């Protein structure tokens, strides 16, 4: 039986990019307002889940050729690496530093090593959530 879902596929192609934009906004807003690496990772994972639901596993794997287990491992490595990086400078584990920079077009912005830690958290969340969901979906024994 052929199923007609042209509307869903057309809408999802645009909506996925809106969701990814929201995820990036949430990731960078997490310094002083609601947001951060965990929430950003969850929203990115929800965009991927939307792709998996609309299309099938093989088509998405051809489009996004990423092994999500390796993404989770890279995220944990980044998050722990920022902790050990502070040990190399002679301060306590996970000590974070921040400095104000003048970026053209954006003005005065504060950049910190917290962002690298948050990036690690986001990658870990994306990797773990997508690994769980894809392995549950592949495990239907019929």
């Amino acid at each position: 039986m052929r199923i007609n879902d042209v509307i869903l596929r057309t809408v999802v192609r645009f909506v996925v990019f809106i969701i990814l934009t929201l995820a990036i906004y949430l990731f960078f807003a997490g310094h002083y307002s609601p947001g951060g690496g965990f929430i950003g990772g969850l929203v990115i994972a929800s965009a991927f889940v939307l792709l998996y639901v609309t299309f099938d596993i093989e088509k998405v794997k051809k489009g996004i050729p990423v092994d999500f287990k390796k993404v989770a491992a890279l995220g944990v490595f980044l998050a722990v690496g920022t902790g050990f990086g502070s040990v190399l400078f002679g301060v306590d584990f996970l000590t974070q530093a921040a400095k104000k920079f003048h970026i053209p077009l954006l003005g005065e912005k504060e950049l910190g090593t917290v962002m690298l830690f948050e990036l690690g958290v986001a990658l870990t969340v994306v990797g773990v959530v997508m690994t769980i969901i894809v392995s549950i979906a592949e495990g239907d024994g019929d």
Partner: protein
Amino acid sequence: MMIKGILTIALIFFTITVVICLYRVIKGPTLPDRVVALDMIGVNMLSMIAIISLLQNTTAYLEVILILGILSFIGTIAFSKYIERGVIIERKSNR
């Protein structure tokens, strides 16, 4: 002052709508009834959060509105696909 009263009355009406939808979710004779009622609960909750953020005069809830909309959308699509095809994530679709 009058705006505040109007918004409070609107909140009460939204609450009544959510309760009616909850009745449909529990009682609903078929699965599509329940799915449509759940989607409607999500939309009404979005509106309630918007009204609450107006009442408290803050913008802190705007991300909640966006994320609740996204999750309600994905949930409705997943339920509809379950009703129509039986599986939510297919290994290979025959198109």
